[in-house]
């Protein structure tokens, strides 16, 4: 197999921004993107005229045919590099990778990456659930009343069956990340959550209850990627891309090669190899957590523990701030925000903030290397990124 060209130390994230989050009825999805983009640009200390590339993803609430062009039009940008990526929740990290590729290839110098939707107030909850049902195969899954929580529930049941993971361990993922969200000033969730509340919540798709499922938020997020050379002159401290890898195994769960082994291992392997780093070098992890079972699987596949030990890793407190590997220090999609492709994008923003430092109680002490994993579909599309405050 070919060895992928290295993107190590070639680009940096120099600005991050998130919109107002939660229920924001006075703003459109495009408005949330614009607010996040403006905040990211301010954070970078750059000008609108510096942006020569734009990458965005997709929107269920404002389903424009050419969303990338629509975002540029809304922001008054005329970029020479523009695309909409649709690999579901994996899109933000994949956009970081494509931005890096474009910058290294000299196709653009400074790229705005943004995503977000007004999923909480832009549509009814029923409409949001129904819209997401189209993730199921139209002919071989949807006729059986499948749902996204239902697909992940089948993965959770299989993981419990094969490895002995428990509902209590999954509940601890929600409980631990909620504690982190309470330390984040902009998180959607503002109150503590107990294991009993998670276990006794309204059932959605066994074994998943309501608190095992991510939020439905109004939220937008954005970051600015530029060349490592350009990053040197800016006011913000750059966070360098050390390694990044994609891997895609299926779209519909029906065609998943397995329900207990996924593509995280391979996207992680590519990222580690490019970075020249391994699991022991990582100080903080921002993992995709659309459902509580998912970060458990990702921890295992990224090599932070053996298969079947991910649940105990959370239950024993290793994933807490102050633990051996703090996970989802902003609260993740379970407690900070989830709005389409913005969900995983907030993991990238949080990794950058942790590496810059100065987050007070939320700060992971001495954090120099962070890993981010985004996945899309039903653990179908994967992208793992490794970031560092220093050139490795």
């Amino acid at each position, binding site marked *: 197999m070919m060895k992928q060209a290295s993107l190590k130390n070639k680009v940096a994230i120099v600005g991050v921004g998130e919109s107002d989050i939660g229920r924001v009825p006075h703003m459109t999805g495009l408005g949330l993107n614009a607010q996040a983009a403006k905040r990211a640009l301010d954070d970078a200390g750059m000008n609108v005229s510096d942006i020569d590339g734009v990458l965005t993803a997709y929107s269920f609430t404002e389903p424009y045919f050419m969303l990338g062009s629509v975002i540029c039009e809304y922001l008054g940008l005329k970029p020479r590099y523009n695309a909409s990526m649709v690999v579901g929740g994996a899109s933000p990290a994949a956009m970081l990778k494509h931005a890096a590729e474009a910058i290294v290839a000299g196709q653009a110098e400074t790229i705005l990456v943004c995503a977000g939707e007004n999923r909480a107030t832009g549509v009814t909850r*029923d409409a949001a*659930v*129904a819209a*997401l*049902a189209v993730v*199921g*195969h*139209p*002919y*071989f*899954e*949807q*006729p*059986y*009343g*499948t*749902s996204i*929580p*239902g697909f992940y*529930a*089948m*993965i959770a*049941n*299989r993981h419990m*069956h094969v490895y002995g993971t428990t509902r209590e361990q999954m509940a601890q993922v929600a409980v631990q990340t909620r504690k982190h969200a309470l330390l984040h000033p902009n998180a959607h969730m503002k109150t503590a959550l107990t294991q009993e509340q998670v276990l006794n919540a*309204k*059932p*959605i*798709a*066994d*074994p*998943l209850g309501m608190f095992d499922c991510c939020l439905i938020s109004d939220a937008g997020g954005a970051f600015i990627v530029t060349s490592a050379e350009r990053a040197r002159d800016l006011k913000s401290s750059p966070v360098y891309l050390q390694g990044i890898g994609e891997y895609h195994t299926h779209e*519909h*769960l*029906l*065609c998943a090669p397995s*329900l207990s082994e996924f593509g995280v291992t391979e996207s992680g392997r590519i990222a580690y190899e490019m970075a020249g780093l391994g699991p022991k070098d990582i100080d903080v992890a921002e993992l995709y957590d659309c459902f509580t079972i998912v970060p458990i699987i990702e921890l295992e596949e990224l090599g932070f523990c053996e298969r079947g030990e991910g649940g105990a890793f959370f239950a024993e407190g290793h994933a807490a701030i102050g633990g051996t590997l703090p996970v989802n220090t902003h609260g993740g999609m379970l407690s900070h925000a989830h709005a389409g492709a913005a969900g995983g994008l907030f993991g990238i923003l949080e990794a950058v903030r942790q590496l810059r430092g100065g987050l007070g109680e939320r700060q992971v002490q001495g954090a120099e290397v962070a890993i981010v994993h985004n996945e899309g579909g039903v653990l179908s599309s994967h992208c793992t990124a490794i970031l560092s405050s220093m050139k490795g």
Partner: protein
Amino acid sequence: MVDSIAVQPYIHNQEMNYQEKQLNISLPKPVSNADSRTYWDGARERKLLIRRCNSCGVLHFMPRFICPSCWSEDLEWIESKGAGAVYSFTVIHRAPTPVFAQHTPYVTAMIELDEGPRIVANILGDNALSVKIGNRVSVTFEDRGDGDLIPQFERVTN
């Protein structure tokens, strides 16, 4: 006052229509296309058809124009015995659409056929809700109206 009199019957009629519609909504019918027509025609005759590649011999579900293993176009349809085991499942309490909400809780499962390929379907029958991974199941066919049948599964009690 006049407004409320004028408005109330209207709202009432809307609600009645909505409820009537709910009762009349039936579960979705299969949609066949060029890849799947033979599959759904087979289901109407109570046959579960899967594809076999004559070049590499690999069986697959979700019918395609080419073999996903070797890209051969030399594919044939074979009839599955319809027997298998539950690979995983979930009990759905929150349905994706109002049509399925009428039937909660219901079981959606992934079945591993004895021939190898996996298929998503519901587990039907009185003992469906107590299903476990590994339970033996056999195919049955659910009437979705106008002669359309879709493959479903029932637990096999030994």
